[in-house]
């Protein structure tokens, strides 16, 4: 392959218009505001951020569920952002999605077998019925569902089992890339860990590449090789799994890390980086660096100048004025 990247995202942008009354000025929600990142073949890229930061929109843009306003999505060395519906079908075979809510994402009127056979009927017309069934049974077993349940409906399964079926559905076409949008958020912790382990095993077995979207930094840190931190439609930091915890750069990443309640830590009276105030609205984001209204290190220039993505080293990229030329000393 000429390129080590399976997926390249360049300045991807999506603004949703808000309907306003007659004569009112048109407003937009800047859900994804010019983001760029790459995912290597076989790695897990985690996108983390709080609600409304645009992480799910990013996943949907890449999978073509919604169209981008501008920017490029390059998958397998092909630009896929301006394909027709028909051309998309071919790409989707290589790129599947796992959704958050295992209750809403499986059709209540289809049996497990029907759910898994449907993609095969569309994309693998050359296989005969028996071959397809074998493939379904094998994959279900790998995902931890006994093929004995093949003719049951989705409501007969628990949440964890349903998510296993959702994962099996995504894998049945043998895709290269899986976009997982909060796949474990609806599950209890004891089930969550089963699913996370399963996803790791399947990745190894089928050489999958994951884009894993979650609000939970500890889940993201467990499953990802590299992590992108989003805030209000921007990626503020991209970092390797090791560095994000040991050496976070962006003040928002630091705040996010310190906000996660960890077991066994007795809550000290002296606080680490603690954020004041609410997340601003994406329809009216702050000027300059969008984080400056909550940032404990905000400077004058942060209010007006948008920080650029700055490559610090092989493993870390950050968009923050603290790391501009000449500012490095102040930051550390």
């Amino acid at each position: 392959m000429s390129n080590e990247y399976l997926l390249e995202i360049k300045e991807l942008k999506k603004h949703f218009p808000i309907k306003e009354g007659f004569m009112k000025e048109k407003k937009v929600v800047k859900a994804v505001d010019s983001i760029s990142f790459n995912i290597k073949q076989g790695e897990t890229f985690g996108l983390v951020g709080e609600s409304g930061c645009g992480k799910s929109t990013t996943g949907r843009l890449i999978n073509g569920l919604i169209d981008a306003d501008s920017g490029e999505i390059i998958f397998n060395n092909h630009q896929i952002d301006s394909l027709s519906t028909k051309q998309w079908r071919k790409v989707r075979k290589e790129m599947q999605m796992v959704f958050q809510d295992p209750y809403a994402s499986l059709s209540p009127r289809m049996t497990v077998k029907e759910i898994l056979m449907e993609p095969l009927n569309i994309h693998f017309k050359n296989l005969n019925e028996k071959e397809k069934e074998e493939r379904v049974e094998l994959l279900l077993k790998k995902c931890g569902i006994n093929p004995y349940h093949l003719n049951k409906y989705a409501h007969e399964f628990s949440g964890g089992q349903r998510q296993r079926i959702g994962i099996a559905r995504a894998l049945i076409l043998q895709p290269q890339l899986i976009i997982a949008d909060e796949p474990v958020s609806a599950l209890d912790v004891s089930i969550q860990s089963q699913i996370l382990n399963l996803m790791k095993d399947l990745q190894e077995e089928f050489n999958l590449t994951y884009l894993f979207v979650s609000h939970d930094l500890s889940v993201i840190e467990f499953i990802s090789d590299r992590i992108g931190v989003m805030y209000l439609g921007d990626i503020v930091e991209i970092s390797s799994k090791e560095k994000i915890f040991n050496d976070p750069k962006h003040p928002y990443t630091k705040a996010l890390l310190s906000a996660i309640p960890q077991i066994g830590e007795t809550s000290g009276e002296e606080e680490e980086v603690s954020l004041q105030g609410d997340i601003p609205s994406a329809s009216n984001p702050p000027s300059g660096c969008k984080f400056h209204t909550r940032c404990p290190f905000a400077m004058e220039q942060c209010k007006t100048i948008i920080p650029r993505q700055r490559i610090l080293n092989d493993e870390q990229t950050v968009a923050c004025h603290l790391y501009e030329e000449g500012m490095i000393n102040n930051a550390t």
Partner: protein
Amino acid sequence: MAKLLEVNNLQTGFKNSNDTLKVVRGIDFHLEEGEILGIVGESGSGKSVTALSIMRLLHDTPGEILSGEVNYKGTDLTKLTEKQMRKYRGKEVSMIFQEPMTTLNPVLKIGRQMKEVILLHTELNRKQAHQHAVETLESVGIPRAKDIMNEYPHQLSGGMRQRVVIAMQISCNPSLLIADEPTTALDVTIQKQILKLLKDIQKKTGMGIIFITHDLGVVSKICDRVNVMYAGEIVESAETRDLFNHPKHPYTKGLIESIPKLGHNQERLSSIPGTVPNLNDMPKGCTFSPRCNFVMDRCHAEHPDFYETDNISCRCFLYDQIAEERMSHV
């Protein structure tokens, strides 16, 4: 310290056409004045139904208290009539729910909703009630409290709404506050603010708090003591520090180990096999036995009692064995 609340052998069930499903299967615990007690468990463990039983808020559901006592300052709340219970709710015992919009009325201004509680339970007149409402809103860290009195709940963010609910629930100085997953719907940075707020309020007013959550990390931040619930029972009870340093029950251990920990570079997570048992098909003996790695013959036959080890009481035969071994050595 005096006991503020004492729950004895509480059993709550949900009726369906032919039989009653027990959701809370005989739990005992107490809360001391000024204490934050955590109740932690996964979905379906009965933690929310416990809270609703204490508040006597089951009348909108097919649920009912089957037996047991809920002694609040010496009064058994389960024996009160609905009319008497209304005097307690909001004034003596208050509750915060997970989703602030389940508490707030979307078509009434926040001021009116705040004042309603205060007028009902105190002697204050309208003007004083208004003043008290503004002060309470300010005390929970709401900026421009005066303006917010005239706004509707949908105009606020999730974190702000939860602050309004907290203000509403503490406005009549209750001695007991039950918080049922109050931060689960919030983002982590906002959750941190709300946890700190609850802790500050507790320190200032000295009220007792029952904090219900599925998140062990949150428990470890805020609670003094913890009850771990599984399938409608308390399986382990201890001070927070003891519980997290030396968890005893295999379920608690499994739960703690299955959480991904930051900065540990774990290759795999350990997990508890299987799922929570179905209410109408409870395993005989210990309810956790089908999922337990340390299961013994005895666990399938008998129902374990509480055993005390290292300041922890735990419903598991493993610790009975230890006791027996010690006895035999003496």
